């Protein structure tokens, strides 16, 4: 009975499960609005760009009701869940309000023309602003109570699931797993051997440090700390070393990858250049914590699109995070057999069962999979008779191309096989296409087309996809906006809660052991991503 009740309670006591409920609630709300012929896209917004205070004021006034709605949603859902988890919510409510206003300010700061020239997006800016404030001022307790980095990032990851098709996860999973396993095992062995053989540290301490660098950062250190019965001080040092390196790597990887990725729409040509998908995969192998890694790839995504976020998620969450239970199980056996001293009869004993694989499993990932499955099923149910429409005069904008056109389709010759699907409505000033237009069909239509007609046809092809013209803008786009809010809240939290003075208290031996691991991990991650699995990650969108 006790076991059953505690299992039931766990569903309401951990951030992982709440991230699932919240994420799925957002997705459900967006879908209900979509199915009822509406969209939450007017409510789920982020601040725009500006170059003068008048523009800033206009944008703020125009979007204020939407910001209030986003705030109200997060405020209520986070407060209720925090209360049920056992937090003191009066402080949280004040703290979250200030945190949200801080995130709003960071968004607007990032949208300033001057910041765009500096190539500084909201993710890095949130982190920088947070670090400056957190290290110069003493934060009040009520603000600290709202700094729930993990909760916000887990919610964001569940929302991210709605934007990643299940087919992509299924096809990319094995590649991500293979690459992540090579990097994880090599990094773990390097840190462990450096810690134990070079610096003479306790093997359990080496395991805590190694897992922090190889699997899932601080969460990995804690999971393994309990499995191998590590000293409290070893856990504390592991947390500090991993956190410091994770923060340093955010800036290093963001700076280096942004230098290596060519401008949007341009393919890498130099040997040192990488695609944004490769950048995401590399960050996925070489960052130590989910939140830290997302700070890098979200920053990359502000300029280069979501490929980096998608690749990172596949590599880090699916390739590394979800295997932490296996690591805990194996290392608990190794600890009992090899590391624990028989002479210490007073020390707690016991061996873990296979059940630990599930117990340590990061449950929020289930929400990520569920979100992906739901959206993939809906995307697969696109109506076959969907009619795409495009104006004969207008503009076409994609990530790589932007064009204005004014086409005349009078006398346009339609290939006979497409004659029953293509319609030119001269009176309505539009062209229409029934069903989704394939690239081959676009080519066939474009063969006899002039330049303006080609742009109109490209726009028609985009509109012919029910996913691109209906589901994406009306249901998925609002989810992405709310995900951006969750991410920026998270990055601001990382900055505000990182006090280097408090963290830099560890000795040099664990620091150097971890650093040797970093020195192996980063080039190995780069090599595997850009030289071994490059064709796969480059093709990722």
């Amino acid at each position, binding site marked *: 009975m*006790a*076991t059953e*009740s*505690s*299992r039931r*309670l766990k569903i309401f*006591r*951990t*951030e*992982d499960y709440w991230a699932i409920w919240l994420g799925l609630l957002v997705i459900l709300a967006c879908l209900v609005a979509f199915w009822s012929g509406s969209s939450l896209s007017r409510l789920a917004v982020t601040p725009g760009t500006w170059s003068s205070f008048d523009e800033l004021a206009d944008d703020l006034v125009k979007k204020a009701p939407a910001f209030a709605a986003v705030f109200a949603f997060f405020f209520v859902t986070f407060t209720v869940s925090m209360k049920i*988890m*056992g937090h003191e919510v009066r402080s949280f409510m004040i703290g979250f309000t200030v945190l949200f206003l801080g995130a709003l300010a960071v968004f607007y700061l990032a949208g300033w023309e001057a910041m765009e020239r500096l190539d500084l997006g909201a993710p890095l800016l949130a982190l920088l602003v947070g670090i400056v404030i957190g290290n110069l001022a003493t934060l009040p307790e009520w603000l600290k109570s709202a*700094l729930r*980095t*993990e*909760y916000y990032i887990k919610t964001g990851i569940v929302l991210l699931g709605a934007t990643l098709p299940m087919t992509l996860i299924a096809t990319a999973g094995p590649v991500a797993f293979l690459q992540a396993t090579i990097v994880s095992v090599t990094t773990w062995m390097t840190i462990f051997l450096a810690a134990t053989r070079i610096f003479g540290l306790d093997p359990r301490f080496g395991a805590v440090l190694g897992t922090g660098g190889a699997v*899932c*950062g*601080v*969460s*990995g250190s*804690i*999971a393994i*700390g*309990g*499995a191998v*019965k*590590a*000293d*409290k*001080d070893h*856990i*504390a040092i592991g*947390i*500090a070393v991993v*956190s410091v390196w*994770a923060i340093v790597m955010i800036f290093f990887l963001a700076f280096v990858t942004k230098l290596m990725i060519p401008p949007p729409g341009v393919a890498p040509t130099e040997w040192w250049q990488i695609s944004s998908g490769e950048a995401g995969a590399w960050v996925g192998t070489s960052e*130590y*914590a989910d*939140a*830290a890694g997302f700070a890098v790839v979200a920053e990359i995504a502000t300029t280069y699109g979501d490929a980096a976020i998608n690749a990172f998620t596949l590599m880090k969450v699916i390739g590394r995070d979800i295997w*932490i239970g296996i690591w805990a199980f194996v290392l*608990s056996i190794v600890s009992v057999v090899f590391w624990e001293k028989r002479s210490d*009869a*007073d*020390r*707690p*004993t*016991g061996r*873990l069962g296979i059940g*630990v694989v599930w*117990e*340590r499993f*990061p*449950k*929020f990932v289930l929400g990520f999979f569920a979100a992906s499955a739901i959206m993939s099923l809906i995307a697969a149910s696109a109506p076959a008779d969907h009619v795409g429409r495009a104006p004969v005069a207008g503009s076409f904008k994609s990530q790589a191309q932007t064009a204005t056109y004014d086409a005349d389709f009078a006398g346009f010759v339609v290939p006979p096989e497409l004659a029953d699907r293509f319609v030119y409505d001269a009176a309505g000033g539009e062209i229409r296409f029934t069903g989704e237009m394939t690239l081959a069909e676009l080519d066939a239509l474009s063969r006899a087309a002039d330049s303006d007609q080609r742009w109109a046809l490209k726009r028609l092809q985009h509109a012919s996809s029910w996913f691109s013209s209906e589901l994406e803008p009306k249901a998925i786009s609002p989810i992405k906006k709310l995900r951006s809010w969750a991410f920026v809240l998270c990055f601001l939290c*990382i900055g505000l*809660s*990182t006090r280097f003075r*408090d963290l830099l208290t560890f000795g040099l031996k664990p620091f150097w052991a971890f650093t040797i691991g970093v020195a192996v991990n980063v080039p190995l991650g780069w090599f595997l991503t850009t030289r071994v699995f490059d064709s796969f990650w480059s093709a990722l969108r």
Partner: protein
Amino acid sequence: MSEGTPAGRCGRCAHFVDDPRELERALPGLGILSSAWGSTRGDQGLCTVHDLFLQPVMSCPRFADAAIRNPG
């Protein structure tokens, strides 16, 4: 205390700290990039006698029943 842990195990010991608030106080920096409220920490906790981070299913001769020490 871990409700699902058999008697005599760390999860039911008075020296075992698994309250997430206390854990985040005892391990400064834990909340920066992780959390004591997450699945990966789960029901693991600190033994205040041995200063070890443990699974609740462990046991030792120093066990002190939390239900007797803190009735109710």
